[in-house]
């Protein structure tokens, strides 16, 4: 199925939301593996998002202008003896999408809570 240009798939929305949560926690930038871990924690899954799926989604979000990326200073990985990280950051353009997604998430959770309360509290 071909998706509409500019439309976001659930994974891309989840990435934006997780990035916004990370930013709220004080981490403005994140790398791919960090995002994969965050997504699996949020969804309560053991398996991390597949390499191709994750990096394709990140590339698409960057192309849409919702994320921007940079390679970290090469001195840091050289000092820590590891490969360099590509660091992603939410752009201002993503804020509106994040806000809409957060409202939708809140509405869904409110609805679920209400239903659960109706079931648990006897009439």
């Amino acid at each position, binding site marked *: 199925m071909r998706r509409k240009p500019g439309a976001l798939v659930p994974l891309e929305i989840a990435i934006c939301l997780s990035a916004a949560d990370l930013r709220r926690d004080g981490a403005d930038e994140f*790398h*791919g*593996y*960090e995002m*994969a*871990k965050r997504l699996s924690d949020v969804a309560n899954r053991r*398996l*991390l*998002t*597949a*390499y*191709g*799926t*994750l*990096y*394709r989604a990140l*590339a698409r979000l960057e192309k849409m202008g919702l994320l921007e990326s940079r*390679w970290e200073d090469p001195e840091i990985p050289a000092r820590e003896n*590891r*490969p*360099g*990280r*590509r660091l992603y950051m939410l752009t201002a353009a993503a804020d509106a999408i994040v806000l809409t997604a957060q409202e939708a998430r809140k509405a869904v959770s409110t609805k679920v809570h209400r239903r659960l309360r109706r079931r648990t509290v006897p009439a």
Partner: protein
Amino acid sequence: MTPGQRLATVIVRGWTRTYTWRLPSPVRDARRAEIDSDLWEFEHDPERARGAAPTLHIVARLALGIPDDLSWRAANASAPARPARVIALTAATALIVAAFWVYDLAQPQSLPLPPSRMAFVAAPPPPPPPPPPPPDQTRHPGGHALQERAPARAVPVP
């Protein structure tokens, strides 16, 4: 790192090299470096890299992402290649046309000869018009005289 995990890492790297092969170098190198970084982070993540599960985990992440890898490859391969091919074809066509034009210009061209001198002579008076021919009077035996012979008609052949 266990031998199984090492093998899985090699497979992921090999696959990444395969689907990024012959892509523009910035795109190719970025994807390879990103996957390398991910593998390293996974390997050094104390929460994940324990027991036999990490090997399966790496292989599963690879296998589930293959369709996306291929579509990413297709999107990245067609975008820069197409304009380059169009530009090359246009340039080649323009070059061929220009070569023909220059070759044609370089050829010695023979100009048309001027017309020979013409003498103007007074024309003789036109001859009188011939008298109109008498009407065709054919007498059929035992019949009437016909004024004119009827023109032949084409009869359609069945």
